[in-house]
């Protein structure tokens, strides 16, 4: 489905279609990075998407890569902004939703385990598995080589497994 091609006659639907397709992944991306106000950051990302969507051309893969590039930059800006504010709450001090009986898609244990990873590992793992980008797209979005992406992803998954107590095959 080519939702990335802007059609002036149904531009509104295109915007909604893009949101329906990618908003959950973007929200999960910000949640995985344990950034405060992930809903607000998601809204900022899609406001930028709405402004640039009329001039965007490409398939679904290019659209996903473009949206998560915006999300990655927005996340980096937010981290830098909070780093400049001495009174900003530390990320670790934020209350994360605990386990609930409802299937709301949140995995507190996983979110807590992601905090153990280094920022580079977390970035790559989240883009690769939460945003569902390919290795090449992750490399392009983060400005790394594909080999570096693979290495960081493998080490990140090992660290998550170790923290979550997933038994190793060895």
């Amino acid at each position: 489905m080519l939702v990335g091609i802007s059609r002036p006659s149904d531009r509104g639907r295109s915007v909604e279609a893009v949101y329906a397709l990618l908003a959950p992944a973007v929200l999960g991306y910000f949640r995985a990075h344990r950034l405060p106000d992930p809903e607000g950051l998601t809204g900022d990302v899609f406001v930028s998407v709405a402004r640039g969507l009329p001039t965007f051309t490409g398939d679904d893969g290019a659209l996903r890569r473009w949206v998560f590039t915006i999300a990655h930059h927005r996340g980096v800006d937010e981290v830098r902004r909070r780093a400049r504010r001495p009174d900003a709450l530390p990320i670790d001090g934020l209350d994360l939703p605990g386990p609930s009986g409802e299937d709301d898609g949140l995995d507190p244990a996983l979110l807590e385990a992601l905090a153990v990873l280094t920022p580079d590992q977390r970035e790559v793992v989240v883009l690769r598995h939460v945003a569902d980008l390919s290795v090449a797209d992750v490399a392009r979005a983060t400005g790394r080589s594909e080999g570096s992406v693979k290495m960081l992803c493998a080490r990140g998954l090992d660290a998550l497994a170790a923290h979550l107590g997933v038994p190793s095959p060895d």
Partner: protein
Amino acid sequence: MPSFTRVMTEHDDLTQRLGALGGAPVPDPVRDQHLHAMRAAAPAPTAERRRFGRFAVAAAAIVGFAAGSTGFAMAGALPDPAQGVAHDVLSVVQVDVPDRPSGHGLCMSTAAKQTDPAAKKAEQQACKEAKQAGTGERGRSADAPGKTGDAPGRPAEAGPHPNADTSDCKGRPAWAGTKGGPSAEQRAARDACPPDEGELDEQQSDEADPQRQEAPATPADPAAPDTSPQPPVDPPAAPPADPATPAEPVDPPADTPPADGGQPEDVPPVDG
């Protein structure tokens, strides 16, 4: 098996949990808020309309320029070359704009450069008609004293004298101003003119110099207005005299055309 693939196989459950984190739906209130902000932020005109805007601006600029130029042309405010072009172009579409102004003096001097007597006479006649049409240009008057029998100093705007005769015996000779001088036929034609026409005699016409053609208005005819002829290029040979002051008997220079008609009686007439 490559290490990366091995890792992926071992951590399938972990990757599935990560994938589920990216699949959790956005709460409805948050979704509505986001969509509202997106619709407000989306640009209303499309790129196509923006491009149309550029074309519209360019078309409006062209139309405005054309309208402005036409307006200037109709007011005669364009430079002479442009005014002439505008006259020629707009006349095709039946739009009447004034032609480039043609100075009568310039016209006459241009006509005087013709070597063909017939062509020269035709151009001079055309210049007179153009001036009569009301260009309003003040050129070197063809009504210089002694030329057409008009009173000296007759205003150029008055046009040719109703009784002006455009035959070879009137006005400036066809060969005046040329280096070659009159031909035998021209000389004979001039000799056949009656002596009281007030024309230049052969000697004076042969020596006539465009720079000396402007004769001062001699004060012979007090009734005539003292309007000195306006030379197009050259300064007058002598300052104009005061009509109220009777002229002293002064011998005119040899190359100065005699006063036409209203010579004072005490000034010896020049043989014609």
